[in-house]
């Protein structure tokens, strides 16, 4: 315990000295740092803060120091996070490398692969994107058709991916490819890494109903990836893919977690809390004057608090045991549904002021609500649809039988 107290003191001192003042304020969308070869720092202090964190490995505090991480124990990491929250410190780096690729490289990657990629992730030097879904594959991810053929010292990759987040801005991709067409679909998939600057790659942003284009279609035309960029064993990529999906679900469910807080993404505004927005737009005579809406908001806040407590419990339980588990499907699904509900209630609270698209008549915050409401509809589609999560719960958690295999054995 003394050691932990010492760690807390030293972390607190270090943060006090090293975290720039503007990094101790609520994050704003434009100042999120994604890193990469062509990094963008809207606020110059963001770079200072990232560099200092990265030097200590604290962008990835639990990763081994050997690979650039902080080498901290779970207990130390909890303390570090508490201290970061205490001063309201912003995350230094937002990255699919940290939240998705890193954990599976640590588990399945070779020593050389870890040495090559992990330190760059820690320092935010390489921005990663994910090549999973393909046009038409939808929830049936394993039906993927992008082909990788071994040709001497490299794989030749042909095919296309869809829903690759920020593929047009990413430096490298972790990608599922088919390396055997003659076996059941799950058994012929491999997990491979390659540089997005390679010849033969084109990306095309997809415009969403919200007007934003965070995703791309990505096309591979005879792209060469070195043979030793394969992670894990050949044709064993599905194991890695599933593991990574669990990490992704854990990350996405935290959206829902955030929606439980009054504090929306750290911003302070009229619409930061549902009840605040409702009282502002609907009137407030000591209490919210629309009692039906008030009941709906109370129900939402009760559910989101219960959800937050469940996420915490899941963390406490996983401390006593394993990493992300089947409950990640439950958390992902519930968190996403909560976030969608939150925006629908917000739309209701704002009334016709939530119906603007652009231009005069609506303030920036109101216009953002409209866009974010539309964006939220993807929550229950991306990272595995609600339907898939419910299937996973039914089959893996509750052990209910699969109808297709039942009917095969029965008839």
């Amino acid at each position, binding site marked *: 315990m003394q050691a932990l107290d010492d760690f807390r003191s030293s972390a607190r001192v270090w943060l006090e000295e090293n975290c720039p003042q503007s990094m101790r304020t609520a994050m704003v969308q434009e100042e999120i740092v994604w890193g990469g070869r062509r990094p963008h720092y809207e606020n110059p202090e963001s770079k200072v803060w990232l560099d200092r964190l990265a030097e200590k490995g604290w962008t990835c505090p639990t990763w081994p120091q050997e690979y650039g991480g902080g080498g901290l124990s779970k207990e130390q990491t909890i303390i570090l996070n508490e201290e970061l929250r205490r001063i309201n410190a912003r995350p230094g780096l937002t990255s699919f490398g940290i939240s998705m690729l890193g954990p599976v490289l640590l588990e399945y990657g070779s020593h050389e692969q870890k040495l090559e990629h992990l330190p760059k992730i820690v320092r935010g030097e390489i921005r990663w994107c994910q090549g999973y879904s393909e046009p038409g594959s939808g929830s*049936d991810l394993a039906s993927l058709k992008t082909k990788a053929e071994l040709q001497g010292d490299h794989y030749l990759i042909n095919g296309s991916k869809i829903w690759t987040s920020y593929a047009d801005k990413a430096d490298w991709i972790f990608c599922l490819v088919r390396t055997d067409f003659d076996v059941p679909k799950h058994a012929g998939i491999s997990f491979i890494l390659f540089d997005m600057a390679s010849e033969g790659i084109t990306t095309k942003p997809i*415009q969403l109903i919200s007007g934003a284009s965070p995703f791309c279609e990505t096309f591979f035309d005879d792209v060469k990836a070195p043979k030793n960029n394969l992670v894990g064993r050949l044709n064993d990529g599905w194991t890695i893919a599933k593991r990574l999906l669990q990490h992704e679900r854990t990350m996405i469910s935290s959206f829902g977690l955030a929606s439980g807080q009054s504090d929306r993404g750290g911003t302070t505004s009229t619409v930061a809390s549902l009840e605040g927005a409702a009282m502002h737009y609907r009137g407030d005579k000591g209490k919210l004057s629309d009692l039906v809406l008030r009941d709906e908001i109370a129900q939402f806040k009760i559910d989101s608090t219960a959800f937050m407590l469940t996420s915490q419990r899941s963390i406490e339980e996983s401390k006593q045991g394993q990493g992300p588990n089947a409950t990640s499907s439950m958390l992902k699904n519930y968190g996403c549904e909560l976030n969608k509900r939150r925006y629908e209630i917000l739309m209701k609270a704002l009334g*016709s002021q*939530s119906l603007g698209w652009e231009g005069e008549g609506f303030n920036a915050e109101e216009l953002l609500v409209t866009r974010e409401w539309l964006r939220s509809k993807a929550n229950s589609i991306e990272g595995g649809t609600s*339907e898939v999560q419910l299937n996973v719960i039914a089959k893996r958690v509750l052990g209910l039988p699969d109808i297709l295999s039942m009917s095969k054995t029965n008839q």
Partner: protein
Amino acid sequence: MALVLNEDQQMLKDSAKNFCQQSSPLSVLRKLRDTNDEIGFDTQIWQQMLSLGWAGIAVPETYGGFNFGYSGLGVVLEESGRTLTSSPLIPSVLIGATAINEIGSESQKLELLPKIIAGELLLALAVDEQATHSPSNITTTATKTDKTYLIQGKKTFVLDGHVADKLIVVTRTAGGTDKEAGITLFLVDSDSPGLEIKRTLMVDNRNSAQVHFDDVEVPSEAMLGEEGNGFIALDRVLDIARIGIAAEMLGSIQELFDRIIDYLKQREQFGVLIGSFQGLQHRAATMYSEIELCKSTVRAALAALDNPDLDRIEIAELASIAKAKLSEVYFLVSNEGVQMHGGIGMTDEFDIGFFIKRARVAQQFLGDATFHRDRYATLKKF
């Protein structure tokens, strides 16, 4: 009650369907959006609608109309809802012409209705002042001077206000806020001095306006109906409009549902059509049932408008039932539309997004489900 269309109504519906599908498909709305069209509807299509006589369907023959009843206008709105057609049918015909026909003096009717039917005059209704619909909650004042009234205040969510020739403005000439007594309606030329009309672009690609009145002077003859007694007449016009909007929503919901069912029958996942998954089947069956209820409420409400035996309260109940129910079901089906289409439903390239955007605007316009449940309970005295 006639809950099934008669032969003439069915013929009009078929011809409206034909026109909308052929001449005014959803791609028209997309093009208006992509070209940032300032008018917000296709004037050529509108001219064709005028030549089909759509602006006069519910207007008595005396004023140049076809006296075909609100059921007739309803089936046209339903079909235009299927293609999300944006046109002056709602603001100028369903609301504007109805207001003149219901409230106007004989001379106002004789002067204005033929112009609306001919497409020479566009109207818009300026009633809401806050972010939620509350038609008796009026603070815009009209103060009597010698021979004129001076209007002061502001209005919001004025559908197509930016292209209207005249606004129908709901003002207060007496009484306190949120009182039904003391409300007076005026017809105000959109080029009146002191009147500022600011176009706002909505998420459904329609145009609403925010309107400011800074001592806008209107002559006494511009009054629509009686001074101080405007609310009851207004409320009936709003009820007709709510029923008409519900008819338009019904068309959109059915179109959306048809697209969902088509997709469930053609999209494969895990080696089977996704429409074979019982989870989706039960949700589809639930939507189907709700939509059947929607059809009945819309038909009943339209039939009631054409039935002279029903009183104001009976119409009001049916209007609130229709608007509440349709709002709730459009919410359900538009969300399921995106969810069941998965990723493709989230892309702008695909049409589903247009429906969910239109859904939220239509839900709120002239009162959302909560508003109408409250109103219904009040009408039912509980």
